[in-house]
C-alpha cells in the first residue's frame, strides 16, 4: 500500500514533465513509428482501395521479383562501392587537410581557408547540380567548350556517358564534404599533448616521423570511430548527389542508381509500390544490423563515443 502510494505521488509529480514531452513524442510516433509499422507494405500487393492494412498478403513475392531483376544487384553494388570510395578517399583527404590546417597559425588565414572549404557544404544539392551543369553540359559547359578543345579532345556528352560518373561524383563528394570532415580531425589534432612533440624533437624526429609516430596514432580512435559510423550508414546514400547532380538522366542509371534513387523512382515515377517498398525494407534492415554492429564495436573501443 505504502509503495503504491509513493509511486502514485511520483507519477503525479512527473505529470507536468510528461505533458511537456508529449508534443515531441507525438511527432516521433507519427513521423517515425507509424511508418515503421508500414513496412508490412513490402509483404503486400498494395491496393489503395483496400488501404495499407487491408491489402492482400503476398509473402516474399515482392522480394523475389526485386532480386530477380538486375536492378537489385546494380543498386546494391553502386551504393556499397561509392560509400567505400567515399569512406577511404574521403578520410585520407580530410586527414591531409586537417594536418595542413594545423600548421596555419595566423587566425586570419585559418578562418579564410576553413570558410572556403566549408562553403560548398552549406549549399543545396540543387545548386551543386547547376554548378556541375556549368562544367559538363555540351552546349555551354566549361569542359566541352574550353578545356577539351584546348587538349584536342572531341566533345563528350557527359549526361549520357555512365563511365564518367564514378569520378565526377567522387570529385563532387570530396569538394562538398572534405572541409567539413576535416574539422573533427583538426579538433583531434589540437587536443594532442604538445609535450609529446617536444620530446620527439629533442630526440631528433623530423616532421614526417612526428606525423607517423605521434599524430596518426593519437588520432587512431577518432578515425576508427568515424569510419565505423560511416560503415553503419553504408546502405544509405545522399539522394541529391545521385539523383539531382546527374539530373535524373536515364542513360546514367548503371553508375548512378543507388538504393535511395531506386526507391524514389519505383514509388514516384514507375508506380511500383511493391518493389519500391521491398527495396526500402531491404535497405532499412541491412542498415539496422550494420548500425548495431558498428555501435557495438565503437563501444568496445571507446564507450563514451557509442550512441547508446
Amino acid at each position, binding site marked *: 500500500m505504502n509503495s503504491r502510494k509513493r509511486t502514485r505521488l511520483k507519477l503525479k509529480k512527473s505529470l507536468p*514533465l510528461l505533458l511537456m514531452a508529449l508534443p515531441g513524442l507525438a511527432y516521433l510516433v507519427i*513521423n517515425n513509428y*507509424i511508418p515503421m509499422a508500414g513496412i508490412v507494405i513490402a509483404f503486400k500487393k498494395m491496393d489503395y482501395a483496400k488501404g495499407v492494412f487491408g491489402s492482400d498478403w503476398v509473402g516474399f513475392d515482392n522480394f523475389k521479383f526485386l532480386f530477380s531483376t538486375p536492378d537489385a544487384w546494380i543498386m546494391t553494388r553502386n551504393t556499397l562501392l561509392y560509400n567505400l570510395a567515399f569512406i577511404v578517399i574521403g578520410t585520407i583527404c580530410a586527414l591531409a587537410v586537417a594536418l595542413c590546417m594545423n600548421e596555419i597559425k595566423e587566425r586570419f588565414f585559418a578562418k579564410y581557408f576553413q570558410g572556403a572549404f566549408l562553403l560548398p557544404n552549406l549549399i*543545396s544539392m540543387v545548386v551543386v547540380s547547376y554548378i556541375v551543369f556549368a*562544367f559538363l553540359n555540351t552546349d555551354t559547359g566549361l569542359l566541352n567548350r574550353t578545356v577539351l578543345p584546348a587538349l584536342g579532345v572531341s566533345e563528350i556528352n557527359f549526361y549520357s556517358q555512365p563511365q564518367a560518373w564514378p569520378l565526377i561524383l567522387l570529385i563532387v563528394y570530396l569538394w562538398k564534404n572534405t572541409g567539413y570532415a576535416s574539422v573533427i580531425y583538426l579538433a583531434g589534432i589540437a587536443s594532442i599533448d604538445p609535450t609529446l612533440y*617536444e620530446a620527439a624533437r629533442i630526440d631528433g624526429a623530423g*616532421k614526417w616521423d612526428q606525423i607517423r609516430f605521434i599524430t596518426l596514432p593519437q588520432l587512431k580512435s577518432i578515425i576508427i570511430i568515424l569510419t565505423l559510423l560511416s560503415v553503419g550508414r553504408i546502405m544509405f546514400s545522399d539522394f541529391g548527389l545521385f539523383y539531382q547532380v546527374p539530373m535524373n538522366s536515364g542513360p546514367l542509371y548503371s553508375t548512378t542508381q543507388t538504393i535511395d534513387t531506386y526507391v524514389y523512382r519505383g*514509388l514516384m515515377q514507375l508506380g511500383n509500390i511493391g518493389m519500391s517498398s521491398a527495396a526500402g525494407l531491404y535497405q*532499412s534492415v541491412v542498415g539496422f544490423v550494420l548500425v548495431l554492429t558498428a555501435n557495438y564495436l565503437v563501444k568496445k573501443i571507446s564507450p563514451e563515443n557509442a550512441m547508446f
Partner: protein
Amino acid sequence: MKNLYSRGEKAFATGSGVLLAVLAVASLLPFLLIFMASITSEESLIFNGYSFTPKAFSLDAYYYMLAQAQVVLRAYGVSIFVTVVGTGASLILVSTLAYPLSRPDFPFRRVLTFVVVFTLLFNGGVVPSYIMWTRVFRLKNTIWALIVPNYLMSGFSVLLVKNYFEKAIPRDLIEAAQIDGASEFEIFFKIMLPLSVPVLATVGMLTALVYWNDWINGLYYINDPSLYGIQQLLIRILDNIQFLKSGAAGMALGNVVVELPSAAVRMALAVIGILPILLIFPLLQRYFIKGMVIGAVKG
C-alpha cells in the same frame, strides 16, 4: 626555443600553407564560374560557352530576372516562410522533449530516451511515410508538406540539447527553484531556455539550413508551382528553362519583347539561390563548427 623547429618542419608549414591556399581557391572557383557566367552576354555564352574570362559582359540575365521578379520573389517567400515556421516549431518540440529527458528524477527518462535513439537506428523507409502523409494527412500540395514530414524534429538535435541541459546547467539551480515553489513550466521557460541560448542557436541554425536547402519534400509532395520554394524553382528551371516564361507571357523591356537569355539566366538563378547563404555565411560558419564539435564529442 625557436631553433627547436627544424628546417624540415618549417618547410612543412610553408608547404601546408601553399597547398591549402591552392585548395581554397579550387574550392571557390566553381562559384566564380557561375557568377562570371551570369554576367556574360548571351551571344558570348553561345559562342564561347561558360568561362571565367567572358569576352562580353552583360546584366541582361539579371534584368530579365527583375522583370520576372514575381516568380522568384514568390519562391523566396515560400522558402522564408517554411524556414521560419519550421525552425521555430522544431526548436519548441526539441527543447520541450529534451528537458524532461535531461531530468534524472523523471521516471520515464530511460525508456523515452530509447524511443528517441531508436528513430536514429531504424526507419520504415519512404514508401510507408509517403502513403501516410498523402493518404491519411492529405498533405500533398499544401505548404505543410514542406514543413512537417521528416525535418520537424531530429533525434540528434534532441540528444544534443538534452546533453547540454545535463552538462551545462547546474542541478542546484533547478533544485533551488523547486524549493522556491516554481512549477516545471516556470523552470523550463525562466531558467533552462535563457541559459541554453548557445545550443539552441546552434541547433536552430542547423535546422534553418536544412529547411532552406530542402527540395526533397517538394519533390515528393508538391506539383503546384505556386507552392514552389526557391530550390524547387531552381530544379524546375534547370529541367526546363521555358518555365520562367510562363510567369509573364511575352514580357517586355522598353516595349521590346526580349528573347530569353537562357544560358545566362540559368546561372543568374544559381547565384540568386546561393546569395542568402553567402550573406549569413560568417554566422553559419561559427555555429556550424560549434555544432560539429559539440556533436562529435557526444552524438
